[in-house]
């Protein structure tokens, strides 16, 4: 029977993978996928906490649904931006997208 700590460990592992990918991958789409991974890792934790600590209270689950919704919207906007950048610069390498410096 898995307990709360197993879920949190899974969440932490997924978050770390996502973080590592988001910080190290050069392809903007992959970076975006990694961000999604981190969000879902957080979702697991959000669902696990109330399930074990406050049974009958659904705050965490509701919150997770919000996160999913926001994530969907965010992906839509982010992909649109990536496409726009690709059209102008013919690349989606994040190391090349350093407009803020110039």
């Amino acid at each position, binding site marked *: 029977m898995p307990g709360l700590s197993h879920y949190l460990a899974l969440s932490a592992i997924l978050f770390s993978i996502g*973080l590592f990918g*988001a*910080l*190290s991958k050069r392809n903007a789409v992959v*970076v975006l996928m990694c961000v999604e991974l981190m969000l879902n890792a957080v979702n697991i934790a959000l669902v696990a906490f109330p399930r074990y600590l406050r049974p009958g209270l659904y705050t965490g689950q509701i919150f997770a649904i919000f996160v999913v919704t926001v994530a969907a919207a965010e992906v839509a906007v982010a992909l649109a931006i990536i496409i726009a950048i690709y059209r102008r610069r013919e690349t989606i390498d*994040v*190391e090349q*997208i*350093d*407009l*803020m*410096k*110039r």
Partner: protein
Amino acid sequence: MTPGLAWLIFFLPLISFGIIALILRPFFNDRPRLSGYLTIASIASSLGISLWLLSTVASEPGRRLVTEPVEWMSIGNLTVTMGLNLDALTAIMAVVVTSVSLLVQFYSQAYMKDDPGYHRYFAFMSLFTASMLGLILADNLLMLYAFWELVGLCSYLLIGFWFHRPTAAAAAKKAFIVTRLGDFGFLMAILLLYSQRHTFQISELLTNETAVALAGASFLGMNLLIWAALGIFSGAVGKSAQFPLHTWLPDAMEGPTPVSALIHAATMVAAGVYLVARMFPLFHHPEAEAALTAVAVVGAFTALFAATMGVVANDIKRVMAYSTISQLGYMMLGLGTGSLAAGIFHLFNHAFFKALLFLSAGSVNHATGPFVMRYMGGLRRLMPWTFSVMLVAGLSLAGIWPFSGFWSKDEVLAHALKERPILFVLAMVTVFLTAFYIMRAMFMTFGGTYRGGAEAAGEHGAHKATHPHESPWVMLGPMLILAGLAIMSGWFNLEGRFSAFLGEEAETHGFFGSLGQPLALGSLAVAAGGILLAYAMYSARWIKPEAVGRALAPLYTLTSRKYYFDELYEKIFVVRFLLNGVFAVLQFFDSYVVDGIVNVVGWLSLTLGRGLRRLQMGQVQGYGLAIFLGVLAIMGAFYMWGR
């Protein structure tokens, strides 16, 4: 009529200034004459009220009218009021100021005709007259000081009236700054009096208790009464152009000539003498003997000193300017001998004949163009009226019986002989020089043949100068009235009435009786000697002035260069001491210490910024890493020190 009516004396010209500045100048710019009429009307009404004031004060047993002061400001437990000081001195001064001012304004209409600044001229003239009247009427020192500075401001504006000329702008600035040096002492004296007596009210400050209280304390070896009197006197030295602050007055000639007439006769320079007279009880106190001596010595010295410069001046207005300084010295000497009436009586007479001298000089200039006497000459036949009135004024200045100058000068001399015999000698030498320089100016201007006016002077656009003509009646009218006054104003004191009005007794001998007095005969003989010498040198040419100039070359250079006082002040004091000394040190402090601190702060921000800029790599992932590490650090800190 209530004494409060006297407020109008000062308010009417002020209102005239307001109307000209706010209504006539913006909306009736094409009808300049209106401002002249308004100014004349307001000052004429002021003169009427002043005459009423004079007669009312004279019929009052205490020689003083009482009015209710109004509250001016209230700060904490200090309440400053504004009120009128309506006594004999005020009444006399008010009549002198308004009458001279009125005649000058009337004359100005012709003199300033077609000047583009006509409105501005009369606005300033109104304000100038109003300020001077306010100064005279003020019953407390703070109010007096405010008007004192207003008078200074107006003279600045009027001396620099033709501000497009660099010399006029410089002269205006000089007048303002030099008089300001004296004003500093005056302000210190006001503060000293206030700190001791907690009042600005002149009537309370002139009591014996004040003098005793001030005399009781001492500072730097002199009692405070002397310090207060000297401070007031330093203000008077600046305003009345006494040595060593005399340098501004000759340069003040850059203004229009009627302005000079007003400044020299009734307003600006008279303020200094008036101030000493107003605060006279502080000077004329046994404990303040040193201050009174200072007044007398400075006055006598200035009288002689300025007269020597007048002897060699070639510009007719400069001759007048030095004579003003010299005559103001006489007034100070009169006050310094302990006689208020002698000083004020001379001021009274001087106002008329000096205004007339300036208006005549303006009339001559109006006809010929330049002011330099070398280019005039022979105007006696061309301008008979101007010649005759100027002769009256000149003889009055020289102190010839029975013209007004004779009576007041004699009074000053009589007091000097009695009180301060050494200064009397200086004053007698001055009598000789005065008669000499004014007659020299007369002979050079009116005698001989015409020497070409502005054309000879090489001035452009002075076509009228080829044929000099008599001035219009608008100018001659006031001059004739002033000539009448210059003859007769001295007769007010024939029976000692003038002195008695100011609460003093005068030694009088009547109209012809004075001629029997040894002193009067002596001074007349000395003055006649001066006139004779001027005749010998500049009319008959028995003695060649050039030869005298060569024989006394060092003396001539010294006096014609004004004793190098301008150089002393400008080159040595301003350039050496201030610019290269004090200001250089301040400049060093400013550029190395103040600027240094600012530069270090700037340099620090730049360097720090340059370092921090490396952190901004523009890589989104780099920022993400930084955020992650930051969150970790916060969490770690929370873990260790939190809860």
